[in-house]
């Protein structure tokens, strides 16, 4: 098997290079130059303040937001959300938030989420005002299943971590000492589909609702 792929690999590169009228790889200097290139693509102009824009765009995609004054208020806000949605007193909470103190009748765990999980709480890495998107990275602190399995996903966003453009979010990822997360999820509201007669329906496979708690800067 490996043999076949190696042969195929050579054949494909051979075909590509002959199509490009080259006999071998680019010279090393040119390759280094290409790799060093930092693209500067047009970014759609924004004329709002980041927080306002994030909220507007996120809400336009059926997400909901709530402001809280400090991290300590998270459990109370989640409890209020839970009560409003009539959910059980249970949540899968990313270990990034494990310092929080939850009400006594709550069952909280930091493991991955299974089908029985109805509510999860995650801390996001950043938010992107351009499209109203949250950026979450897979780790022991933030399992990917939390983002997709439960019906209700509450995401904690530090107001200071809102950036204007995707490019700024990528810069944050590049600065991480552990490198790219295994999965980076850019999430812009609840899951949706329009596959039946173009009718938009929320909660296709992922969360039916995404609620953001914005922690004041």
């Amino acid at each position, binding site marked *: *098997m490996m043999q*076949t*792929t190696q042969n*195929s690999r050579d*054949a*494909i*590169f051979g*075909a*590509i*290079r*002959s*199509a*490009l009228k*080259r006999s071998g*790889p*680019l010279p090393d200097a040119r390759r280094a130059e*290409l790799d060093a*290139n*930092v*693209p500067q*693509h*047009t*970014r*759609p102009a924004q004329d709002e303040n980041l927080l306002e824009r994030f909220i507007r765009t996120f809400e*336009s*995609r059926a997400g909901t937001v709530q402001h809280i004054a400090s991290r300590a208020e998270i459990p109370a806000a989640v409890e209020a959300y839970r009560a409003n949605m009539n959910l059980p007193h249970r949540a899968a909470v990313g270990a990034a938030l494990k310092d929080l103190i939850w009400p006594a009748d709550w069952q909280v765990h930091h493991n*991955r989420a299974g*089908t029985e999980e109805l509510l999860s709480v995650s801390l996001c890495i950043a938010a992107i005002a351009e*499209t*109203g*998107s949250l950026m979450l990275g*897979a*780790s022991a602190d933030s*399992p*990917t*299943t939390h983002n997709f399995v439960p019906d209700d996903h509450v995401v904690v966003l530090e107001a200071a971590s809102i950036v204007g*453009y995707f*490019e700024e979010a*990528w810069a944050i*990822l590049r600065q991480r000492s552990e*490198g*790219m997360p*295994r*999965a980076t*999820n*850019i999430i*812009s*509201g609840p*899951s*949706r*589909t329009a*596959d*039946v*007669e*173009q009718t938009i*329906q929320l*909660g*296709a*496979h*992922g969360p039916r609702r995404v609620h953001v708690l914005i922690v004041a800067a």
Partner: protein
Amino acid sequence: MEIRSKEFKSRAVFAIHDASLQQAMGKARDGFVGKRAQQAAELPEFEALREEAKNLKNHILENLDHYLERYEDAVKRAGGHVHWARDAQEARAIILDICKRVNAKTITKGKSMVSEEIDLNEALIEHGMEVVETDLGEYIIQLANEPPSHIIAPAVHKTKNQVSDLFEAAHGGPRKTEVADLVNEARQVLREKYFRADVGITGGNFLIAETGSSMIVTNEGNGDLTQTLAKVHIVTSGIERVVPTLDDATLFLRLLARSATGQETETYTTISTGPRRATDLDGPEEYHVVLVDNGRSKMLAGHFRDMLRCIRCGACMNHCPVYGSVGGHAYGWVYPGPMGSVLTPLIKGLDNAYDLPNACTLNGRCASVCPVKIPLPDLLRELRHLQHQQELSPVMQRRALKAWRFVATRPKLYHAGEWIAVRVLKLLGRKGSIRRLPFAQAWTDVRDLPTPEGQTFLQRWQAQRGK
């Protein structure tokens, strides 16, 4: 799927008379076109982005080997595996191999046009594996045992009623008739599959050379559940989908959702980099990328390189009046509409898809919306040129062209011929038009032929003015 593009004409006629298809298509057309136009209008930079995207793609293609190598290295560094497949058969073999090795019983799939291109499902099913399409549209057509009719809305040809029937038959009643209930039913059925899956297969909208990541863009989140919950994640992608950096992918992201579904963004943009890390609580244990050539390196060489810019947004078909009239299935293979009419003959052979490049008025609406400015009409014309050169066009057409050239390069003869034609047509005309004309039935079956005024313009002009 077996190519059936040779039956284009009959399938097109059939489609035109299919009332539910026409109902579904009408709805889709209006939705996609209006929403895209609104997005384009709301973004002053839209045209500049299209131009940049075109140039960036050209740059990538010009250095494709380099970016692929850079990508491959980065995938390996992240603990993933890269496989190279020259054609569909090799791609199937690679994937089958992986699935067999891990003893896969259930395979979930996010939407992947490349997997359609390589006939993957059939091969896996043949080997006793259960294959479950998880994109709602793909799931619907899998139940209907049909190929997709659109590259981003595979079940666009189905009405709600038809979906109700399919779900009732597959899931057992009670029959659901509301969209919300239908979606919910599929959600419940598919959740169980995600958690049971041994292998999850997704496509890759972009492959990021900088980080060795694959990027998928979805609205439903099915691709994420597919790749997060299975033990093995396999990405299938064409070799042309590589981009240098995350910033470069962003340029395309800004165009993709707007062009495809008329949204500023899709709900989920997911960047996957390698398998589960030691400390991760979820995610696949293995991460594989199968890079498929299947005719692409050949396209890179000739007149058709522009086609490799395609980011599979579907805007060209949404705006194509022929696609809008006949739907995707008439095209007879996995890629329909304008982009399919270029790709199908190139991948499956000019002679296997004679009609596709020809069944087009060259009206140019596709090219005018294509986010990477692919000159689709020019490419279709170029395919006609190849067909003409290889004498694949009908003999009658080639004879007619010869005769036309003979006469039209002799002005006196041409004008005399026109004058005769005018006189004959004038004789046949009643009340300004002709209802039936032998030899021109294809015209008069559909519409009257306006009768000429009397003399040709040149005759009258010369009579009045000399020159």
